[in-house]
C-alpha cells in the first residue's frame, strides 16, 4: 500500500468517524424516537459508506472490494427497513412526533 | 498488560455482574438475560486463558466455544418457551418466591391472574414476607394504578 493511499484511507476513516459521532450525538440528544431514528440511520449509513470506501481502496483484490461494497448495500437495505419498522410501530402505538414549543 | 489479560479481567468482571443480575433480578426473563451474559463471559474466559500470543490461536477452545454458543441458544429458546408458558398460566413474569416487596399489581398487566387458589403456597410466602398489598387483599384484585 502506497503512502498516498494510506493518507486518503485515513482521511476517509476520520470522515466516517465524524458521521458516526454525529449519529451517536443525535441518538443521545434528540427529543423523540423519530428524530433519533433519523439521526442514527442517516449518519451511520453515510459513515459506514466512508468506512467501506476506505476499506475498498486499501483492499488487496477486486473481489474483496466487491464484498465490502455488498456489505454496505445490505446494511443500507436492513437499516432502512429497521428504521421504517420502528417508526411505524411508534406511530401505531400513538407516540406523537415532537414539536418545538 | 496484554490484550489477553485485559479480556480475561473483563470476562471475570462481567461474570460477577451477571451473577448479581441472575440472583437480584426479579423478572425471570431478566434472569435469563443475565445467565446469557454469564455464559458469554465463560466463553471469553476460556479463550482468553488459552491464548498465548504471538503463538497461533488454539483451535480446540474455539470449537468448544462454538459448541457452547449453540447449546446456550438452545437452552435459551427452551427457557423462553417456559417463561411464556408461565406468563400464560400465572399472568406474571415473576416467580412466586420473588414476589414484590410492596404490592405487585403493576407487574401483572391487565390486573393479572394466577391459577392457584388464594390459600395456596405462594400467598403464604407473601404473607411471611410482611404485610404486602397482595398478601392482604383477596386475589386477584381490581386493576390498580
Amino acid at each position, binding site marked *: 500500500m502506497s503512502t498516498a493511499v494510506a493518507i486518503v484511507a485515513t482521511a476517509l476513516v476520520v470522515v466516517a468517524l465524524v458521521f458516526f459521532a454525529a449519529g451517536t450525538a443525535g441518538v443521545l440528544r434528540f427529543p423523540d424516537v423519530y428524530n433519533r431514528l433519523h439521526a442514527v440511520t442517516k449518519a451511520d449509513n453515510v459513515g459506514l459508506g466512508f468506512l467501506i470506501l476506505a476499506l475498498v481502496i486499501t483492499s488487496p483484490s477486486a473481489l474483496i472490494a466487491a464484498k465490502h461494497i455488498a456489505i454496505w448495500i*445490505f446494511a443500507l437495505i436492513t437499516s432502512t*427497513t429497521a428504521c*421504517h419498522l420502528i417508526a411505524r410501530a411508534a406511530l401505531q*402505538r400513538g407516540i406523537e412526533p415532537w414539536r418545538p414549543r | *498488560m496484554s*490484550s*489477553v489479560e*485485559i*479480556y480475561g*479481567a473483563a470476562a*471475570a*468482571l*462481567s461474570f460477577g*455482574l451477571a*451473577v448479581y443480575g441472575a*440472583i*437480584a*433480578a*426479579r423478572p425471570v426473563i*431478566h434472569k435469563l438475560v*443475565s445467565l*446469557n*451474559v454469564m455464559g*458469554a463471559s465463560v466463553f471469553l474466559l476460556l*479463550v482468553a*486463558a488459552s491464548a498465548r*500470543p504471538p*503463538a*497461533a*490461536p488454539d*483451535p*480446540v477452545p*474455539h*470449537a*468448544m466455544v*462454538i459448541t457452547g454458543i*449453540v*447449546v*446456550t*441458544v*438452545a*437452552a*435459551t*429458546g427452551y427457557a*423462553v*418457551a417456559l417463561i*411464556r408458558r408461565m*406468563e*400464560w398460566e400465572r*399472568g406474571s*413474569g415473576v416467580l412466586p418466591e420473588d414476589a*414484590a*416487596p*410492596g404490592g405487585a399489581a*403493576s*407487574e401483572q*398487566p*391487565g*390486573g393479572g391472574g394466577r*391459577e392457584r387458589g388464594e390459600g395456596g403456597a405462594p400467598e403464604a410466602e407473601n404473607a411471611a414476607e410482611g404485610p404486602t398489598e397482595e398478601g392482604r387483599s383477596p386475589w386477584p384484585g381490581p386493576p390498580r394504578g
Partner: protein
Amino acid sequence: MATEVTGALLALDVVLAVSLVGCAAALVATADVFKATVLFIVFGVMMALVWGRLGAVDVALAEAAIGAGITGALLLGAQTAQPARRRGAAARGREHTFQPATPDDAPVYQPARPSRRVAAALAAAAVAGVVLLALSRVPTRHPGLAPILAPHMPDAGAENPVTVVLLSVRAYDTLLEIVVLLAAVIAAWASAVPAAPKPEPPGALLAAATRVMVPVAVLIGGYLLWRGAAAPGGAFQAGAVIAGAGILAAFAGVELPRRGGAGLIRAGLVAATLVFLGAGAYGPARGEPFLHYRGGAAEGLILVIEVVATLSIALSLVGVFMGRPPPRTPERTGGDDEFG
C-alpha cells in the same frame, strides 16, 4: 511503528473491554427488561469484535449470528404480546384473553428486597474475585492443545482446524450438540402457549426487503458453509444466518405451503441427527470406532454432515423462535399458522 500499532490495538482492547463490562453492568442494573435485552444484543456485538481481536474468527461469526442475532430475537420475542389464560377471563366464559404489551401497560418491576440485593452483591464479588485469582495463576508457558491436534490434520478431510475439531476429532460433541438443539425444539413446542392473534401485515417495505434479503442470506449461508472447510465458517454459522432469513420471512408474513410443509419441517429437523449417526456408523462398518472417519472418505462425509446439519440447525433455530409446531393441517387451524 510496530510499537505504535501495538499501543493503538491495546487502546482498542481497553475500549472494548470497558464497553463489555459497562454493557453487563447496565443491563444488570436496569429495571427495564426491554432495555436489558437491547443492551444484551449490544453486548453480543461487542463480544463478536472481541473474538475478532483474539483471533477467533469462527467464534466471532457464531457470536454475531447466534449470540447477538438469534438469542436477541428470542429474548425480544419473549416480551411481545401474547395471550394470557386468566382467572377473570375464564369466569367470563373465555379460554384466554389477549394481553397487549405496549409501553403504557408494560409491567414495571420493582427491585428485589435489599437483603437479597446485598447477598447477590456479595456472591458476585466473591465469584469475580475467585475467577480473577484463578486467572492470574493460569500457566503462561504451555503448548495448548494445538500440538495434539496437529497429527490429525493431514487426513481429517478439512483444512480449517476448528472444523476438524468440530466434525472429526470431537465429532461426538457436535453430534450431541445437534441432539440438544433437536431436544430444545421438541421441549419448546411441547410447552407452547396458544398463538396470539395474527398481527396485521408489517407493510410493503418489509415485504420488499424480505424478498431481497432472504435469498441473499441463504447465499451467504451457503458461502459460509462451503468456506468452512478451509477458512472460518461452517455449519453453525451458516445455519444461524439462514435461520435469520427464516425469522425475517416469518415476520413478513410468508406462509408455509398448504400441504406437506409441516411434515417437511419435521423431517428436516431430525435429518442432521440421522445423517450424523449414519456417518458415525462408517467407522464400525470398517472395524474402526464409532464416528471415526479419516482419509479418502472423510471429506465427503464431513461435507454431507455439514450440509444436512446446516439445514437442521436453521430449522431448529426458527423452530424455537416460533415457539410452537407448524400446524399439520392448515385447513383446519385456519389463521393460526405463523410458522414461515
